[in-house]
């Protein structure tokens, strides 16, 4: 059962990392608006304003 002494601390470390990442995500406003981004993804990238060349698109 000694392997537990390694695995459990690792899982705790991962937990700490996950919590840290979550706190960072919340603090940087990623959860502030959960409605608009859903539509963002629908129409992006393929329409570029005339000022940018279309070469980098497919």
């Amino acid at each position, binding site marked *: *059962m000694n392997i*537990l*002494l390694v695995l*459990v601390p690792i*899982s*705790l470390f991962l*937990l700490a990392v*996950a*919590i840290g990442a*979550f*706190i960072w995500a*919340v*603090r940087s*406003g990623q*959860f*502030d*608006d959960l*409605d*608009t981004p*859903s*539509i*963002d993804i*629908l*129409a992006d990238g393929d*329409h*570029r*304003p*005339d000022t940018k060349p279309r070469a980098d698109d497919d």
Partner: protein
Amino acid sequence: MSTDRCYHCGDPLPASPILATIDGKPRAMCCSGCASAAAWIGSAGLGDYYRLREGDSSRVEEAPPDLSSWDRDDVQAAHARHLDDGGREITVVVDGMHCAACAWLIDRALRREAGVEDVSANAVTGRVELRWREGATRLSRLLGRLYQLGYRPFLASGEQLETARRQERRRMLIRLGIAGLGAMQVMMFAEALYLDHANEMPVATRDFFRWIAVLVSTPVVFYSGWPFIAGLWREVSLRRLGMDTLVGGSILLAWAASLVQTLRGGEQVWFDASVMFVLFLLAARYLEQMARQRANAQVEALARARPALATREVEDGSRRQLPVGELQPGDRVFVAAGEPLPADGHLLGDARLDESLLTGESTPRLRGANDEVFAGSLCLDQPLRLTVTRCGQDTRLSHMVRLVEQAQSQRPPLAQWADRIASRFVAVVIVAAVLVFAAWTWIAGANHGFETALALLVVSCPCALSLAVPAALAATHSGLSRMGVLALSERALFAATRIDDLLMDKTGTLTEGQPRLLATQGFNGVSEADALRLAAALESGSTHPLARAFGEANVHACDLRITPGLGIEGRVDGRALRLGRADFAASGEDDGALWLGDGGQALARFEVGDRLRTDAAATVQALRSRGLSLAILSGDAETAVARVASALQIDDWQARQSPEDKLAAIRRHQAAGHRVGMLGDGLNDAPVLAAADLSIAMSDGAALAHRAADLIVLNGRLDRVPAALAQAGRMQRVVRQNLSWALAYNAIALPVAALGLITPGLAALGMALSSLGVTLNALRLATPPATPDTETTAAESAREITA
């Protein structure tokens, strides 16, 4: 979308629409403002906006006002934050952002501007956060872009409140996240301990697991669970039994007892019960708060009426602009025509004001010198000056905003009843827990006694009972606000399903309420087009809603003068012209139509009227199928009402009804044993709305202050009325289900736990599942059922009928 409406804003098209090409197709627009907005959107490759949006956009004003005041240092100092990297950030509230597509468009449009570093638009709160680099662009230019797209920016008031709210939201989310991640870990270790039925685990491993559980559960209990512990402390110091007494008490008890067991090497620990309790209750609370905030965001629309800048006049007559916040009572303020008053005060001369925001009265009021006027009223026709008496938080408008907020935050009677029951129940549970502890300690020892008592405390927490009503209400609010309906009183939501009579106002309710040009007749050699052209020129200086009906002015009128109640006069092409009542414009007899003349000779006659709302017919049908008997009560003339009534096949109608008559009609219906709903435009029939069992007002955000109405339909869509009634019906069913579920659960769980049949962990699961069940059941209300598309053929044909 039908073709006789503006492609951009959905307004009816004028006689000669403007064509613009969007995504390769010609589209008709109502005015050059909409056309240029649409053309810009098309050329910027943002044409997807028209596919993504959920409703019409706002009409675009043709000439954006002077926004240069936004660039002033004193304004920016007060409202724009300096960022570390030299950028600046400002939050503005915009009018007309209806759905996520608008937020998308604003985001994309502003990012195209040079000097913009970051934009985030939130369609729920109507706020746009804008970060730009100073020197690279001017704020007025960016806001001008918003204007061009039809979104009017306002200074976001209550910045601190919003920041505080956002931080609270984030803190709650972090609490929830930590509780979720931590609880999963603790449960994993608890599971390992539970699976050790035969006590085969070495003591060292067992204690290792327990200490890990202590480590992980401590932040969950004391950070994530802090709201409950703080609530426990509050209730204890007030000597009052409430939900938090039980929740906080159980959490702490389970955690502390487990810690003691860990130290002593006792048989059992209950960390899992403690953290699960925190997690599930927190989740339920979070969902409830989110739904509530969504509903509240709409109330803030009111605050938008406050102008960002005021113009102060000093002794020598010179004027200086300053932020509204700097106004002091006693200041003399100048207000340009078309602008809202920045503060309450006394007039220094005659003025015509639109006070609909405060009084709901839509017809402009004439006010004389020394009359008291209020912030939020619109100054019409000509500039005015006033002496400030109250400003900032003291204005009538601010009071009104607070009243609306209060109305929203009060708990409805049913929820209060549930709270009282819960409070008594808590006392019963605590007594029962003590008895159970004593009994089981005597039977099977202190360890078993404690475990049973803890299970009892946890399992019978009346959280579901307390959540049952608020969760349903919050979800309903959210569902309604998605439909564009605002429920100002929660009592109304309960009343909504009981009404069986619906009395409807005509003007502004069944009809659009805005005069439209229906017919034009030219006389004495004046063609229709010429007549329209001249009228448009004369009306170009007017803010009257009718002015738009004549289209855009392409000739210039000078010497414009308005005679209130009669009409406008001015010179067009060197010719003195009058537009207004027949006796004013053409010395004829007033026939209700609008005449163009030179004071003696008539040149044209414009028939002006009101059109039926496109969804009126479908709505009437839907209301009938809900079993409501419908009647029209209108203050309008007989013929107009009869036309609407026959178009909608409503037999019961009465014309020329004064507010007193309407009130009497409601009383009559009520005396006959009916529960009466009143559907009005919320502007002129406040007492009538107040007397009805349920009052629904069709209006825009401006009349939010009108608390006489229980439900306000914000987007002017009549079909939301039956939808809102249906939603209220669903809510009542859900509340009933929730209450009976919560009561039944507790009635069963309490004796089962008292008999020692469940462990604390299982108890936490059961309790949480019952709370979660109640919340999830309530959340069904947050997504309204798909509303049938009202643009049916019936509605289309009804539109042709004018009233």
